[in-house]
């Protein structure tokens, strides 16, 4: 590698060619403040908080955008730099609804942190904010333009990763805003509610719709039995909210802390992930045997469902009819468990803890309720909201002793856990399908990248003579590519796993703020670690699932399943 000699604050170091000043400074232990920079995104260089002095340059240079050069002499803390940084932050604050104490991002905000660090307590400039309406039209995402610092991170996420371009720059000059075209309400756009924009927003301008209060009310209502389910991806990310190493598995602490909050029953969505595998696996076999629509597409990612319903409604027959594990769970809770414990569904309050914002949207779909009013899942909380609740209740997550899930829906297999990572549903499904068909155990699946189609991976497995080709994709820009292939009849796959969010659910839009690819990989590794640790690794070997079939569901794709575990989709082309 080509190494260059540079000097930062009088420290001489060698760094690789192509390194930005911002990253070079990290190597000598200097964190240059930054707002628009994001390690996984194209350099935008618009906030100008990260400026530094480069010897010989006429003006200050944005360290995120400037690559080091041989012999470069950089100073990151001169009076000139400090003044410019301060003024830039003060300028942002002067066009900002600065009310940190009542802000959703208080203590988790990039702007607030930098202001505090560089010693800006209030702006010397007159506040010029013209208050705009907060967009609360979406059941999942809330957009508060009064907090936006116009860094463009959300635009890049929505456009480059999700391929949707719902958000964009509107207007120019001092009037530039970041919002949907024509200033439309989010709910009137084809936004899929994935929440990826909220993960990268450094301030409180895009966040999830907060539903914490409803849950507190239910917990404190003596007439309600409050049941909570936790998604696979939450156990490998919640720790980050409390300063733990990314990728730390905190399943036991998660359960204990939910109990501490006062939930009556703590169950695991992994249980219905196993159930999904049984149902979806049999659906696939049925389609293969009876000449059904292929490739079959997975249906457990509600952001992805929003996408196909709005952008490719003609391809809806490809979609598996299985509900997502969250909704299977909700249906079982209200349609089976309630009766089992001698309660009416109205007395049950069903909460789910999800890494996802789109699941808030999904839970409010009419078909996901008993009668259009009593929903199978009453409230969806994101990982972030749960962390907030725990902080509100003063639960010391680091201290709390691990506990176990409640029976009967607390038992799950490793197959259920890996649902949380891209490729997990496919692997889990094939573990079961392969064994059902061949009677043998599936060895490691070997996925290979599809040439020329970045981000799409495929594999072949031999089901007793029938070669089945499968593929996996994550993020919607990639999903779009595969949908185009299907449309053109060029996708010779039998089964495709599609996840809306980069990395799968572990990279969901409800996960801790500031997610990066590096972090996602750590979470994925943790998910597979958790899989390995479990004694049962195949869905069809989960005794609790088998018991449920025996006692209640009778058989996969049976009448009860059809009623509780499967759904239908709507053409919502916009």
């Amino acid at each position, binding site marked *: 590698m080509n190494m260059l000699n540079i000097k930062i604050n009088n420290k001489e170091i060698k760094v690789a060619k192509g390194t930005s000043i911002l990253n070079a400074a990290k190597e000598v232990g200097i964190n240059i403040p930054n707002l628009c920079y994001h390690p996984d995104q194209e*350099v*935008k*260089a*618009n*906030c*100008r*908080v990260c*400026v530094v002095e480069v010897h010989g340059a006429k*003006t*200050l240079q*944005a360290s995120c*955008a400037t*690559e080091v050069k041989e012999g470069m002499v950089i100073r990151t803390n001169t009076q*000139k730099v400090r*003044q*410019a940084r301060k*003024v*830039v932050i003060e*300028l*942002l604050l*002067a*066009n900002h609804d600065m009310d940190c104490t009542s802000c959703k991002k208080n203590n988790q905000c990039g702007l607030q942190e930098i202001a505090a660090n560089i010693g800006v307590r209030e702006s*010397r*400039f*007159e506040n*010029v904010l013209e208050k705009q309406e907060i967009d609360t039209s979406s059941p999942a995402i809330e957009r508060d333009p009064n907090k936006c*610092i*116009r860094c463009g991170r959300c635009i890049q996420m929505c456009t480059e990763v999700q391929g949707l371009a719902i958000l964009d*720059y509107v*207007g*120019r*000059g*001092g*009037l*530039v805003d970041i919002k949907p075209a024509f200033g439309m309400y989010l709910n009137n756009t084809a936004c899929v509610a994935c929440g990826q924009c909220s993960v990268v927003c450094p301030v409180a301008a895009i966040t999830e719709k907060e539903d914490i209060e409803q849950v507190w009310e239910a917990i404190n209502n003596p007439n309600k039995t409050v049941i909570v389910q936790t998604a696979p991806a939450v156990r490998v990310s919640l720790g980050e909210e409390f300063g733990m190493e990314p990728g730390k598995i905190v399943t036991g602490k998660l359960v204990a802390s939910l109990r501490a909050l006062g939930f009556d029953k703590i169950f695991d969505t992994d249980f219905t992930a196993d159930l999904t595998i049984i149902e979806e696996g049999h659906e696939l076999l049925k389609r293969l045997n009876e000449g059904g629509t292929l490739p079959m597409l997975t249906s457990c990612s509600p952001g992805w469902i929003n996408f196909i319903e709005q952008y490719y409604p003609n391809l809806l027959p490809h979609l598996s009819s299985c509900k997502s594990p969250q909704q299977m769970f909700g249906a079982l809770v209200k349609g089976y468990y309630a009766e089992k414990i001698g309660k009416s569904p109205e007395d049950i309050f069903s909460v789910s803890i999800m890494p996802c914002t789109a699941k808030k949207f999904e839970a409010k779909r009419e078909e996901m309720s008993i009668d259009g009013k009593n929903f199978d899942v009453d409230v969806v909380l994101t990982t972030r909201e749960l962390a907030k609740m725990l902080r509100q209740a003063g639960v010391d997550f680091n201290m709390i002793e691990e506990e176990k899930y409640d029976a009967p829906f607390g038992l799950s297999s490793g197959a259920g856990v890996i649902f949380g990572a891209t490729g997990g549903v496919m692997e889990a499904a094939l573990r079961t399908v392969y064994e059902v068909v061949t009677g043998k155990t599936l060895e490691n699946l070997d996925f290979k990248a599809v040439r020329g189609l970045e981000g799409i991976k495929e594999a072949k497995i031999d089901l007793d003579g029938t070669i089945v080709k499968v593929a996996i994709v994550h993020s919607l820009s990639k999903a779009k590519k595969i949908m185009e292939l299907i449309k053109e009849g060029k996708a010779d796959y039998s089964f495709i796993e599609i996840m809306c969010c980069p990395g799968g659910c572990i990279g969901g839009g409800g996960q801790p703020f500031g997610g990066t690819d590096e972090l996602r990989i750590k979470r994925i590794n943790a998910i597979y670690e958790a899989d390995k640790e479990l004694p049962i690794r195949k869905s069809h070997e989960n005794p609790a699932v088998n018991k449920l079939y025996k006692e209640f569901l009778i058989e996969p794709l049976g009448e009860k399943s059809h009623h509780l575990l499967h759904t239908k989709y709507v053409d919502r082309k916009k």
Partner: protein
Amino acid sequence: MSNIEITKNILTARFDAINPDSIDEYISHNGYSALKKSLLKTGEEIINDIKTSNLRGRGGAAFPTGIKMEAVLKAYGSPKYIICNADEGEPGNFKDRYLMEKDPHQIIEGIIICAYATDIKHGYIFIRGEYINAINIMRKALEQARVKGYLGDNILDSGYSFDIEIYTGAGSYVCGEEFALLVTIEGKPGRSTYKPPFPTTSGLYNKPTQINNVETFCNIPHIINMGGEEFSKIGTSSSTGTKLISLSGNIISPGLYEVELGTSIRDIINKLGNGIPNNRKIKMVQIGGASGPIIPENMLDIKLDTKEMKKLDLCFGSGAIIVMDDRIDVLDILKRITEFFHHESCGKCTPCREGLTQMLILLDRFTDGIATTNDLALLEILMETMNQASICGLGQAAPIATQKVLEYFREEFTNKICSTDS
């Protein structure tokens, strides 16, 4: 430097002497002779000649043109592009419009020679959308040049092929900034974007790109015809050649003038512009357009010379000179200039977008008579941050006029301070 001729008609020599719609008249006035000569030379020879001429860009930044061309020639990547910047959005400037309307082929010939020297096959002329007449004239001229074989496949049987497309900018002032111009041609909104170092290595579609101002290109045929050495004798040692001056404001004879570089501002105002009307006194002069510095009457002897002006932190930019007499309200002018930038800012970066809003508020405090010493200090810190931390030249230059007024006419501000708080 003593024998500087105030009026020196090189680029404007054919103005009104030929019909701009007639390529034949251009040819009969020595037109396309430089192209013919160039086609017999190598690219390096041509670039060396331009380097010897010491020609600097006329778009504002005065970057040496030969060095820019050399960078494009050496840059890795193909295809390469050449762009003539005819966006001319700077208020007070109208030289490029005249050059296009009065002698279009001079520009085209200059572009072709540069493209040939740097082995470029595709060219664009980016013309400001409001210049409808100029657009039509340039269109016609390009077509005529194609018919005559100066453009298109196998130019004059040299084996070299090149063509030029016209692109009209519906956008704003900032579209003239080179990165904003590039993204506009690429079909994205005209915002100055961060791109790696310079267009010469990564310009249009991330390919090496030569961008020059209209007037810069117009010099090229003359350099080829007279030789770089001869050309370098015109003007001063640090600023060679002539400069088109768009003279306006409180002046008896406003208009476009071509002067030898090294001419003083006072001579331009008095000898070409015939002084100011109504026997009034000059209060100040803005040089280079809205983004240029403002100087007081007692500095008018300064010469159009990059080096000399740089010593005083001045530059002549694109060559607009706006004269203001003693009736003007200095703060009112500054507010209007600032409003212009506020309107034209693309809004991408914080110092420019938010800074201009705050500059207007602070300036208002002075005109409203409620300013304090703190306001003045804050204004100065703000403007420094805009100079230092904005992405592009618009935000960097927007405060210059105000800063120069503070340097030369500080009392205009201090007189209006109502309290000296701490």
